[in-house]
Structures are given as C-alpha cells and as structure tokens.
C-alpha cells in the first residue's frame, strides 16, 4: 500500500540550521548533518533542505553540506534555495541530492522546469510554489483567476517569489498546472498566510492544487498539531506533509505523528528494522 509521507524540513544558512532542532540526544542542533541523521533514525520518510543563505559564496557551502548529508542518510532528500541554472541543479544531484526544488527560478523562467526534467528526469524536479490568499469581492468578476471559497470569503491564490518578498500576479493553481505540463514531478506547496503560524495548513489552497494536478503535492506551512497534519492529508488531499516547528521544537516525534495518523486510518510507514 502506498503511504502518506512525513517530511521534516530544515532551513540552513551558511551551512548551519537556522532554527535549532530540539532533539535531546543531539550534540550540535545547528549541524544539518546531525539533524538529518536524527530524523532518518526517527522514521522520517524524506527530508527537505532549504538554503536561505543570501550571499554569493552559498553554492560551495551548500554543495559541501549536501554531500555530507548524502553520505549519512538512507532516505531521499530534496534541496532547494537559490538554484537557478542547469549547472546549479547538476551540482546538487552530482553530490547526492535526490531532488531539487525551484521556486523563483521557475517563475522567472518556466522553461527551466522543462529543460531540467528532460535532462535529469521529472522525478527529481520539484516545483516549489509559495501561495498567498488574495480575497475578492464576491460580486466582482473573477477574470481569469481561479476563485476558491474559504471560510473567510472567496479568494484566489497568488504566487510570491524571493522567499515571499515579491508578489507576481500569477495564479498559483494555474502555475501548478503549467509546472506539471512542463515536466515537474512534484509540487511543494507553501501557504504564505500560514507559514510559521502553527495554525494549520491552508486547506482550500492545498486541496485546490491537489485536485488540479495529477502530481504528488507536499503540503507546507502551518502544521502545529497532529490534527493539522491529518487535515492536510485528508481534506487537503496532500500526498505528503512537510513539517518544521512541530518536529524541530520537540512538540511531537515522527513516531507520535505516524501513530496518530495510523489510528485515524491513514496509511503510514513504520520502520520495522
């Protein structure tokens, strides 16, 4: 049986984890390699590493970190942040990343998805979409936006780039469909409204995108309770749940999350070994 995936995400800056991971047995909570080992052992299904370093020396450090991570973990992992060219992607895959995610680069130049998926295969090209709700007057004409009803009122979802600093005017649902056509193999979908709030994933956003593409969708942004993860994977129709604070701060372990999901009838993987 195919299972839902629990995917811890670590942000790192200049080779160090930005928000420390609170595992009791961790010698150095800022070391992405140590954190990766801990999550692999804890039963994570995959991991995502996002480099938020804002400087030109980033590539070298990133390559070094990715290489070290690849040497120690036995589950797949995605690397994202500042990858713009075929060369950037190649350098990450060569040192052992399984997938690369592209957000800003794919908006500025959607063809990079096509080019990269043709060279490296769709399976390793993740389209990272940061979506933000833009509420509309119920009476207004939607134009070509895809309007979604939410508890807070009708809205559409706008793609933002540069780490959530710049709006694009692009409809996130349409962009996801375009990414699929161009050859992306997965959508990493982050709600900007919910990211960091621990208020739960943006379910209407997740569900709408999941229903509009035939690709695996990873829900991201807002998971704060076990119920949130359950909601994201059921009502939100996501295939995987990205988690950050809920795991890093030691609120729940991966096993606790999976036991909760299993008890509610969601297929999850337990490490039997």
């Amino acid at each position, binding site marked *: *049986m*195919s*299972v839902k*995936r629990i995917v811890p995400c670590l942000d790192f800056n200049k080779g160090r984890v930005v928000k420390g991971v609170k595992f009791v047995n961790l010698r150095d909570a800022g070391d992405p390699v140590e954190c990766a080992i801990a999550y*692999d052992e804890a039963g994570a*299904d*995959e991991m995502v590493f996002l480099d938020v370093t804002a400087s030109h020396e980033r590539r070298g450090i990133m390559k070094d970190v990715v290489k070290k991570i*690849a*040497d120690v973990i*036995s*589950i*797949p992992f995605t690397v994202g942040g500042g990858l713009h060219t075929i060369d950037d992607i*190649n350098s990450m*895959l*060569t*040192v*052992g*990343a*399984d997938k690369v995610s592209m957000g800003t680069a794919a908006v500025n130049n959607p063809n990079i998805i096509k080019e990269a998926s*043709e*060279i*490296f*295969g*769709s*399976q*390793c090209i993740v389209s990272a979409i940061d979506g933000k709700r833009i509420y509309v007057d119920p009476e207004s004409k939607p134009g070509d936006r895809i309007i979604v009803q939410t508890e807070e009122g009708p809205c559409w979802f706008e793609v933002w780039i540069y780490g959530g600093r710049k709006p694009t005017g692009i409809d996130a649902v349409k962009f996801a469909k375009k990414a699929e056509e161009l050859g992306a*193999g*997965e959508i990493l979908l982050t709600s900007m409204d919910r990211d960091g709030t621990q208020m739960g994933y943006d379910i209407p956003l997740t569900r709408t995108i999941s229903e509009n593409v*035939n*690709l*695996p969708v990873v829900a991201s942004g807002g998971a704060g309770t076990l119920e949130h993860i359950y909601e994201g994977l059921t009502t939100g129709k996501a*295939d*995987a749940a990205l988690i950050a604070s809920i795991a890093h701060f030691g609120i729940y372990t991966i096993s606790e999350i999976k036991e909760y999901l299993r008890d509610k009838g969601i297929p999850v*993987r337990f*490490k*039997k*070994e």
Partner: protein
Amino acid sequence: MTTLCIIDYGAGNLKSIKRGLEKVGAKVEITHSIKIMQNADGIILPGVGAFGDAMKNLSPIKKDLIEQIKQGKPFLGVCLGYQLLFSESTEGGIHTGLDILKGRVVKLPNDVKIPHMGWNTLKIIQKNISLVEDIKDDAYVYFVHSYYPKVLKNDFIIATTNYGVEFASIIAKEHIFATQFHPEKSGKTGLKILDNFVKLVKGI
C-alpha cells in the same frame, strides 16, 4: 575484492547507489568504459532520465552490455535500468529497449497520481530467490516512476506492488535481477537487497 560497475549513461545522482553498494562491502566504479564493464564482476544499470534518451546514451556500449548480460554476468537494473531490459517502452513514443526480456513498458493508470513517488510495500511472490533473502512481505521500499513493465512471464516475477495496478516490483531471471524501486533510497530493506546482490556476485 568484488568489483561492480555502475553504468554511467546520463546526468543525475549515481552517488547514492554507489554509496549503498560500498556500505555492503563492494568496490564500485562508475563508468561508461566497455573495458571496465567487461572486467567487473557485476553490472548495475541505474535509472536516470527518460527511456528514449537513455537508450540513445547507451548506444555506444549497447552491444557489449547485452553481450555481458547474456554471457551470465550478474546484473542489477534499478528503476529505469529495470525498464530498459524490456523490448520496448511507450514513454514519449515507442522506443526499443535492450530486449533481454520480452514485454512492454507502459504508463501507470490515470486514476492515481503520477509519478508514483514515495514508500510502498512489496508482496513477495517467490521467497526462495537470493535477492530477497530476509526481506519480509510488506516491507517498505521507495519508488519514483511513471511507467512500469508488463512482464509477460510470471516465472520472472519475484515481488509485486500495487499502485493503481499490481505491477512487478522485483524480477529475476537466472543472474539477471531488477527492481522498480530504488534500493539505495529504501533504508535498511534496500541495503539488505543490495547486500544480497553483492553476496550472490561473490558467490556466497
């Protein structure tokens, strides 16, 4: 020491499978040299990119690769490297494969999300095959694929997996083995499969 060669026929991550094989005690070379392939004790055909491109990239060594496999050298195909063993694939038009096994590679059904990406279980059909020694029924392994081979001979099917359709996730024919999933990304279960392969190459 047992030397295995991983056939390098395109861009991508070959490091994981190399590392996995090294962990279980093999010496591994990533190569596109016919000579190294001929001298190796076993051949790994990994999975990178699309079927048509892969066959194109393999063309300089295709004849020798087929010869090596047919001569009885232990072979492990992974993901696309598994699919390439078959007669043809429908990925991006009809492309001819290595034609070592009869059958056609077709797309997963439309009612499931494609690619099939993530962990899924193995149903072991033939337990007495060395590649799956100590692998339990319902063990989880990691898949990433959009196509699967329709295996014509049931004798070759060692394990199956269900994703919209029940497909052969491990096959074996004499010294030829192949998996649709990525053993190098499948935690301890995957490492055990690689270990089993290395052992059978060593003749243990």
